[in-house]
């Protein structure tokens, strides 16, 4: 499976110049996030740590980025699945170290990918309040309960920019609330039917 070019594997071997295993680990974890392989500051840090040029550091970061994303995408979970990716000539200790680092982090990386995938604005917080209406312009005395609901939604764009929060406040009459709970109950029943299968 040679989706990484020979040059990229060569670039990976630059990691042999690292002063310690922890340095390797740090370089690897820093290069995982989406924009990392294009970030100047990370490239510089890596170049300094390994005493190589900036462009070589960039190549290394890109190579590791592709490798780690491939492992997470394919959900490779054991060393036996990852080791065959490397070419025969690859330094064997480095190969084992890289595999170990990737496996250590793959669960975290996977969960992160799940939580930051494309979605509609996510419900972040929910608050409610029950009021009693006692008078209005059409009735000078009444006793009507009503529910106020406030939901905080957060929209995190996948590609760029920061999260944006919005708040929605709404009022529900007793009938509306009953109907809503009916609907939610039906969802719950369907969910448990699906879970049982």
């Amino acid at each position, binding site marked *: 499976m040679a989706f990484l070019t020979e040059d990229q594997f060569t670039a990976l071997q630059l990691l042999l110049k690292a002063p310690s295993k922890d340095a390797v680990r740090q370089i690897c974890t820093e290069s995982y996030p989406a924009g990392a392989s294009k970030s100047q500051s990370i490239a510089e840090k890596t170049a300094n740590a390994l005493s190589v040029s900036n462009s070589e550091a960039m190549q290394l970061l890109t190579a590791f980025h592709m490798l780690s*994303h491939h492992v*997470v*995408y*394919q*959900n490779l979970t054991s060393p036996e699945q990852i080791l065959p990716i490397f070419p025969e000539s690859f330094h064997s200790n480095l190969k084992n170290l890289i595999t170990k680092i990737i496996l250590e982090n793959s669960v975290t990386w*996977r969960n992160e*990918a*799940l939580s930051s*995938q*494309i*979605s*509609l*604005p*996510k*419900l972040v917080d*929910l608050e*409610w309040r*029950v009021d*009693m*209406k006692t008078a*209005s312009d*059409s*009735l*000078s*005395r*009444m*006793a*009507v*309960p*009503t*529910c106020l*609901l406030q*939901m905080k*939604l957060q929209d995190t764009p996948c590609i760029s920019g920061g999260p944006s929060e919005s708040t*929605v*406040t*709404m*009022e*529900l*009459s*007793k009938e*509306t*609330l*009953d*109907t*809503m*709970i009916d*609907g*939610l*109950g039906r*969802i*719950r029943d*369907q*969910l448990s039917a*699906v879970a049982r299968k």
Partner: protein
Amino acid sequence: MLQLHFTNDTLPDNVSTDFQNLNKLSEQLHIVLLPHQSERFLRQLTEFAGENGMSAGPLRALMKSVLLLPHGALKRNLTAEQVKADLLSLGLNEDKARHFSDQWRIHYPVLSRLAVGQTLMVNQLVDMEWKFGVTVGTSELQKTGNIFLQLKLVIRKGNTTENVYMELTLPQFYNFLHEMERAKASMDCFS
């Protein structure tokens, strides 16, 4: 000065004249007087006027005064007896007063429920649509299997509606349901 149940204000002179004029109408007017449906009511009046050979203009003016009583009575939660007493004080004859107060007794629950329904509501939730499904794969993960729930809430803002879309995870959904049931329990305490 007349002491009336349905209002504390001084009524203009024409109002009591108008009530007395009601006596002159030989037909019984079977109408349910809904406070905010004046347009439909005026149309019915014009039809009635046409059917019975009287002009619509004076009839409409008369009815405007007459409507003051049901509006005030609804606002102050008057009983049928109080309504009848006011009608008699204003000069309506016994027969029509009794008929009107009987109609009032019959239709009062509907009228007050309609009045409650017309009470101001801010950002009223009008509709809720939902769908749930399973995410099969993403650009980062070839195979996944986690469940998502999407809600669309339709909120009335003034004359237009606004759609709010959101996504919930399963734990969030169960929390949402739990909170709504708590709110319902709280509301049930009051009714």
